[in-house]
C-alpha cells in the first residue's frame, strides 16, 4: 500500500465516498430483500476503491459511462443518493422518473451518461463521447467503467480500438471482479491480464490492485492526465471482488466460502481506514463518526426514496421522443 504522497484530508473525503457507496448498497440490498424495490439489484460492495479512485480525478463536467452494477460509479461521480433511491423505488421523482430503475440511472447534469443493462454497450458510447470532446477541443475526459465480462464482447473490441486509433480522451476501467454472473473470467479469457490486450490496441495498459485505493488513485491519475492532455486512451484492469452474488438474492453457488472470505479480508474500506488512522488523519472516534454521518445520510435518502411520488400511469408515454 502506497499513498504517502496524498493529502490525508483528501483521503478522508475519498474514504467518505467509499463508505457512502457501501452504505448505499447495504441499504438497497436490505430494502430489496424485504421486497420493497422492484426489478433486479446488482451490488458493488467490495469494489468501492475503483470508482472512488478513478472519479477522484474527475470534475463535475467530466463524463462517465457505467454498467448494470453502477451505483458505485454514479455515487463516486457525485450523484444524490436520495434521487437514486427514488429511482430504485420507481418514483416519478427519481433520476429517471421511474422509467429506468437501478440498471439505468443517469444524471447528465454531472456527466453520468448512464448505467447500462447491456454488457459492453457503454464502451462505444464512451468512445463517441470522446469524439464530442475532442471535436470541440475540450480538455474534459470520459471514464468508461465495465466488468471483466465485457472484455469478451465485440463492443469492447470495436470501442477500444476506435478510441485508440483516434487517441480519444477516454480512460477504460475494467473492474475485474473475477466473475461474469457464474463464469470465472479465466475460463473465457486466456490473456494473463488486460495489459496484453492494450498492446494489441497500441495503447498503454496497467494492471492495478482494485482493492487498494492508493493503487487505483495512482494509475487513474496517470490515465486521466494522459487523456486530458491529448495523449489518448488507457486501459486499466482493476482486480477486485464483489462480496454479494451477481444480483441480490443470487446464492452464488459457483464460488467457495473460502474465496469470499479471503477477499473480505482485503476489504478496501478497512485498508483506507487503517491508513488514515496510521496517518493520524482520523482517530477511531472520528472514523466512527464519519460512518455514522454517512449512514444517517443514506438512511434519510432511503426514507426519501420510500416517500416518493408514484408516477402517473400516463406518464409512461412521455419522453419517448424529444420532438
Amino acid at each position: 500500500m502506497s499513498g504517502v504522497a496524498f493529502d490525508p484530508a483528501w483521503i478522508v473525503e475519498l474514504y467518505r465516498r467509499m463508505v457512502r457507496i457501501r452504505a448505499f448498497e447495504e441499504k438497497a440490498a436490505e430494502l430489496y430483500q424485504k421486497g420493497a424495490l422492484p426489478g433486479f439489484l446488482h451490488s458493488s460492495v467490495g469494489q468501492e476503491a475503483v470508482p472512488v479512485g478513478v472519479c477522484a480525478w474527475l470534475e463535475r463536467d467530466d463524463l462517465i459511462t457505467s454498467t448494470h452494477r453502477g451505483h458505485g460509479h454514479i455515487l463516486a461521480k457525485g450523484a444524490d443518493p436520495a434521487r437514486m433511491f427514488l429511482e430504485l423505488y420507481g418514483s416519478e421523482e427519481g433520476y429517471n422518473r421511474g422509467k429506468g430503475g437501478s440498471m439505468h440511472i443517469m444524471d447528465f447534469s454531472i456527466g453520468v451518461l448512464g448505467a447500462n443493462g447491456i454488457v459492453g454497450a457503454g464502451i462505444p458510447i464512451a468512445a463517441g463521447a470522446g469524439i464530442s470532446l475532442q471535436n470541440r477541443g475540450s480538455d474534459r475526459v470520459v471514464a468508461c467503467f465495465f466488468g471483466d465480462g465485457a472484455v469478451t464482447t465485440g463492443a469492447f473490441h470495436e470501442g477500444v480500438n476506435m478510441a485508440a486509433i483516434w487517441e480519444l480522451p477516454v480512460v477504460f476501467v475494467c473492474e475485474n471482479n473475477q466473475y461474469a454472473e457464474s463464469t470465472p473470467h479465466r475460463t473465457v479469457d486466456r490473456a494473463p491480464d488486460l495489459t496484453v490486450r492494450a498492446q494489441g490496441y497500441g495503447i498503454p495498459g496497467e494492471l492495478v490492485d482494485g482493492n487498494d485505493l492508493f493503487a487505483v488513485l495512482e494509475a487513474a491519475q496517470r490515465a486521466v492526465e494522459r487523456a486530458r492532455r491529448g495523449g489518448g486512451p488507457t486501459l486499466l484492469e482493476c482486480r477486485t471482488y464483489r462480496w454479494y452474488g451477481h444480483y441480490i438474492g443470487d446464492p452464488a453457488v459457483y464460488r467457495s466460502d473460502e474465496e469470499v472470505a479471503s477477499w473480505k479480508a482485503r476489504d478496501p474500506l478497512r485498508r483506507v481506514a487503517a491508513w488514515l488512522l496510521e496517518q493520524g488523519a482520523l482517530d477511531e472516534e472520528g472514523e466512527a463518526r464519519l460512518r455514522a454521518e454517512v449512514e444517517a445520510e443514506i438512511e434519510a435518502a432511503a426514507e426519501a426514496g420510500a416517500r416518493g411520488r408514484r408516477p402517473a400511469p400516463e406518464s409512461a408515454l412521455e419522453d419517448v421522443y424529444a420532438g
Partner: protein
Amino acid sequence: MPVRELTMREALREALAEEMERDPSVFLLGEDIQDPMGGSYKVTLGLSTRFGTRRVRNAPISEAAIVGAGVGAAVTGSRPVVEVMYVDFLEIAMDQLVSQAAKIRYMSGGQVAVPLTVRCQGGPGRSAGPQHSQLLEAWFAHVPGLKVVVPSTPRDGKALLKAAIRDPDPVVFFEPNVLYNSRGPVPDPGADEVAPLGKADVKRPGRDVTVVTYGAMVAMALEAAERLAREDGVEAEVIDLRTVSPWDRETVLASFRKTRALVVAHQAVRQGGMGAEIAATVYEEALDEVDVEIARVGARFAPTPFAPELERYVVPGVEEIVAAARATLERAGRAGLLARR
C-alpha cells in the same frame, strides 16, 4: 398416456435432456448454462453434469459468436441449441441470425440445412426495465428462412422445443420468463411427444369471438375468456399460435369464419407487431365473405418502463383483451350478446 405436473422450466429441461440423449449431435452453448449455475433461469440445471462440459458449453459474453458458432456447428453436422439470455440481446446477434442462419440454405441453393435452435427468454412483467423486457418476434417473422416458436404451457414447451431441435431449419424459440414457474401436465418421458411446428392449438373452444395470441398472453386470454363467459355469456375461442412464423392461417381463418369477430393480442409493441400481419391477412381473406371485426391488442408505443404501474400501463393484459372482445362484438352489431351483462 401417463402425465405428471411439471413447471415450464422442468418441461423445457426434460426436452433438452431427452434430445441430447437421443442424438449425440445435439449440444448446448450459452452464457452461464453449466452447473452449478445451470443457467440464469436454471433451465439447463444438471445437464452439464450429466452430459459433460463439451456438450454443455459455458460461453463468454459474446452473443454474436454464440449464435455464429451455432450456425457453423449446424451446417457441419451438429444440432446446436444455443441460448441467448434475453430477447433483447438477440440484437447483438442479428447478423448471424438474419444474414447467416436464415439465408445460408437459400444462398447455397439448397445444399445444406441449418438445424439451429436459438433459445431465448424475456418479455415484460417483472420491472426488468427497457433493455430487458422487449418482445421482438415480429422482426423474425419478417425474415424468410427463420421459424419462430413461443410456447405457453409446460406440455407445449417440451413438445415444441423437441420439435425445434429436430427441425432442419433455424428456429428462434422464445421462452416467456413469467411462465417458468407455471405448472401443468406433461406426458411421461417415454411418450416422446413432439408438437408439429406451424400448427396453432385451440386452447379453448368458443362460438362468439376468436382470440388469437401466444406465449405469456395465452393464460391471460383464457382468463379473459372466463370473464367474458361469466360476465357477458360470451364464449370466446382462444387460439394459441405456438408457431408465430410461419403462422397457421388455416386455423385462425376457420375460427374466424365461425365467430366472425377477432381479437389478436400480444404484449409486443402494437405498431408493427404480429397483430398487424394477422389482422391484415384476415381482412384480406375474409372481407368478401363476412363482416369483419378485428381488434388488435398490443403494447402502447413506448419502451417498457421500470416502475410497475408504468409497465402495466404500457403492456396489455387480461383487461385489454376483455375490452377488445367487447368492442369487437359491439362494432359487429352483436352488442345483444353483451346485453346479457
